[in-house]
Structure formats: structure tokens, C-alpha cells
């Protein structure tokens, strides 16, 4: 079955979010099918993070429709979605070991051994405190936790921004290593060049609307250019 024949796992219709006079999402219609790594691309302020927050169930002030596997954002959808926000969401004073306990206590689908394996892959110690870590190391811990759930949808918001190029490669390797093929992995970023090799599809956004969307190979063939070049051309 091809991606276009699969039932959408994430669906939005007329999804709109306004911050005062600013429209962050403008009547967005989107169908995202499982079994792909999707790049949610766009410049700062285009609505990527807001879309991620709505889908993760941490932003309720929207109009229109959003569903994950048929569930509106809420406890049922949160059980299916693993969300990595663009902010450090764990307490600075926490040790890595406590973070593992925290995930194991609250997420029934959390695979502790998988997380420990990823933390080892990243070369991190379980006894370290987050406050003792660099931004890149902390991001690796959070990715280890988020990617070790057997979730159906993974929403990673800017997972490699602010991280040095060497660490970016390691983080992306870690993500690929832990990603299951039947889930949907959405990566929001503006660092297209680093992510290009792993993307199956892209959604490019501007001013809260979809500017361009499709299969990565189809877009490359259609434009005779790399995704990075298409991105630069689109946002010029």
C-alpha cells in the first residue's frame, strides 16, 4: 500500500489559531499518513510550533478540527503521541535516571531498555544531572526519552537547532536508530540540509498555511532540485 492510500493518522480541517491580531495557523487542512518521516519546514513564525502544540494537546485555543487516529487532542491522543517541544521540558535538577523513572511511571508504552540503549549510544551517564549538561547533551537525553515510546506519532520540534554540526549527525542517527517504520515521525525544522537524507515527505508552511507539500522524491524530480534548494527558492 502506498502512502497516499493509507488512512491519515493526523488530520486537520480548517485548523486556525490566532494570537491576538496574528494568525499563526490559517484554516489549515492536512492529512498525514503513518509510515513516513515528514519534514515540517518553514521560516520562524510560520506556524510549525503552533501546529505541533495543537497536535500534542498542549494548546487548546484553536478553532477547526484536529485529530490523531480519530481522537481530538486529549488524554486518548496523548497516549499515541510522543512530543518533544523546542524547550527543555525536564527539570534542570533531575538526573537522567529519574527522567527514565518519570517516563516509565506515566507512559505505558515507554521502553526503558530502549531509552538506556539510546542514552548509551549518545555516550551519556544516567547519574548526570541535566543542569550539568550542554544543550546538545540535554537534547540527546530528551530525544532518548521521546523516541523510546511505542507511540504512533512522534512530534519533534526543532530537535537539532542550537546544536553543533557534529552533535546534529549523532542526534539524527539516534532518531533513525529508534524510529519504527509504521509510525509517523514529524520533524519541524528550518535546517533542511541536515535532515534532507532522512525525509520521506515534506510540508512547507508560510503564514500558517501550507505552501508546498508532497513526497520528497516526487518534489525533487518535479523541481529537478534538492529539498534544500527548493526550500531556499520557495522562501526567497
Amino acid at each position: 500500500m502506498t502512502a497516499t492510500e493509507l488512512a491519515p493518522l493526523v488530520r486537520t480541517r480548517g485548523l486556525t489559531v490566532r494570537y491576538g491580531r496574528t494568525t499563526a495557523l490559517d484554516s489549515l487542512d492536512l492529512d498525514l499518513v503513518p509510515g513516513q518521516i515528514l519534514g515540517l519546514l518553514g521560516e520562524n513564525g510560520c506556524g510549525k510550533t503552533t501546529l505541533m502544540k495543537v497536535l500534542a494537546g498542549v494548546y487548546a485555543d484553536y478553532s477547526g478540527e484536529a485529530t490523531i487516529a480519530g481522537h481530538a487532542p486529549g488524554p486518548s491522543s496523548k497516549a499515541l503521541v510522543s512530543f518533544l517541544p523546542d524547550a527543555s521540558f525536564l527539570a534542570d535538577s533531575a538526573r537522567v535516571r529519574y527522567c527514565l523513572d518519570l517516563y516509565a511511571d506515566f507512559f505505558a508504552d515507554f521502553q526503558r531498555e530502549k531509552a538506556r540503549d539510546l542514552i548509551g549510544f549518545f555516550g551519556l551517564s544516567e547519574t548526570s544531572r541535566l543542569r550539568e549538561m550542554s544543550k546538545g547533551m540535554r537534547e540527546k537525553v530528551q530525544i532518548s526519552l521521546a523516541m523510546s515510546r511505542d507511540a504512533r506519532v512522534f512530534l519533534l520540534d526543532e530537535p537539532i537547532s542550537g546544536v553543533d554540526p557534529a552533535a546534529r549527525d549523532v542526534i539524527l542517527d539516534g532518531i533513525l536508530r529508534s524510529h519504527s517504520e509504521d509510525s509517523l515521525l514529524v520533524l519541524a525544522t528550518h535546517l533542511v540540509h541536515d535532515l534532507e537524507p532522512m525525509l520521506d515527505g515534506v510540508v512547507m508552511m508560510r503564514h500558517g498555511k501550507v505552501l508546498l507539500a508532497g513526497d520528497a522524491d516526487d518534489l525533487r524530480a518535479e523541481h529537478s532540485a534538492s529539498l534544500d534548494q527548493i526550500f531556499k527558492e520557495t522562501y526567497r
Partner: protein
Amino acid sequence: MMAILLKHEWLRTRNLLAITGGLAALVVVLASALTALDLPIISTIAQVFGLIALTALVPVAQIALAVDFWTSNYRRTGYFTHALPLRGSTIFLAKLIWVVVVTLAGLVATLVLGGVLSVGISLQAGTEVNPIPVLQGLWATVTAVASPGMIVAAVGVLLMMYLFSPVQYYFAISVGSESPLNRLGFGGPVLMYVGAYVVFQVLMAIGIFAVPFAVAMEGGRLGVIPYNLLGAVMSPGGAADDLMPVGFLAPFLLIIAVCIWRSVRSWNRKVSLV
């Protein structure tokens, strides 16, 4: 799940609470010792500081928990809290239960520290050091003037008054963090708190004037008597100062119920992190 939520409330706030309780205990023990030494001026100042530490212990612990409530739910770590696959009301109620537990523990600690301070005061005054007979005497006085029902009601109202503040804090933070106030940062909860405080004071004032009853001494015992405060205020003699109008109780309890209901609604339907 409630037990797991409470476990993590304890793990996250235990250091904060230990510092608060430890500081209060240190101040009270030092104050008691300095009071017992009967030093001019110093003993008096120490006694004042001891009393401040005693009375501030529970309110400071509640404010510390309110700050934690704000940071753990509406700052960056809130992304974890609100991404949990649980109803918001379940998480909120765990936090409410935790602040009730901490408040009750704080009240017990206040009583114990009160005993410690009273030892210093008794040594200075040369009176009975053991606080137990003093408490027994106090209890005998209370039971002589108040019925068991009145005592239970008074203790209940006192506890509700202690729990009123955290309920109000959590309400203001939850509702003040909804859209559009969420764009003001901590300004949203502050605005909500100030606005709600004014409304609550007005409601309780209306209750005091509207309900014509008061607690007063009658025939040597405390009882509820008919008392029209509005009429008394308008009369040439003015209001009596030896009774307590009870009209504030109904709006007081109603406000607590509404605050909890609205906070639960906020947690279930209106969380919007920015």
C-alpha cells in the same frame, strides 16, 4: 495513577518544603533559646521573630507550592505535565491534594514549634515549662463555653480558611494562564488574582450583611444568635464588637467550590502553553 502523581509531587517539592520547614524550625528554636536567656531587648526581638516564623510557616509553604505550580505547569516543564495521557482534572486534583497534605503537616509542625517557643517564654517568665498543662487549661476553657458541634464547626472553618489561599492561588494561575492572558506571562495569574480577590471580598461583604446571624456569647456559652449587621451599623450605637457575623461563610464556601470547578475546567479544556 493518583499515588504515582502524588509520589512525583513529593519528589519534586521535597527540597523546597524542607528548606521552608527547616528555616522556620531554626528561627523558632533560636528564638526560644534567646527568649529563655532573658536578655534585655534581644529576648523580646527573638520572641517576635519566633512568632513571625510560627505564623508564616504554613502561608510561606503554600506560596512556595504555588510558585512550583506555576513553573511546573505553565513554564517549560509544563510541556511534560500537559503531554501526559491523563485528564487534566486528575493532575490538578493530585496537586490540590498535595497542597492540603502539606498544609495539614504545616499546621502540625506549627503546633509543635509553638510548644518549643512556649518553653522559652515560660522559662523567661518562670512559669510552668511543660506546654501540655497549658493546652489542657486552654481546652477546658474552650469546652466550657462552646458545644462539641461549635468546636468542630470552628475547627472546620479554620481549616477551610487555611485552604482558601492555595485554592485561590491555583485558580488564579490556571485561569490566568489561559488564552489570551497567557501572553502576559506571570502577569496573567497576577491580574486574575487581584481581580478575583476584589470580587471575593465584595461577595463576602454582601454575605455578612445579607445573612442576619452571628456567633456570640449567650448565657455564658457561645451560640448562634440573630443579628442584623446592616441595622446595627445604621443605628446610633453602631455595630457590636463582641460577636462575629457568620454571613461570610456561605459565599466563602461557594467561592472555594467555584474556584475548584473553574480550575478543573481550565485543566481539562483550556490549557494553552505559549
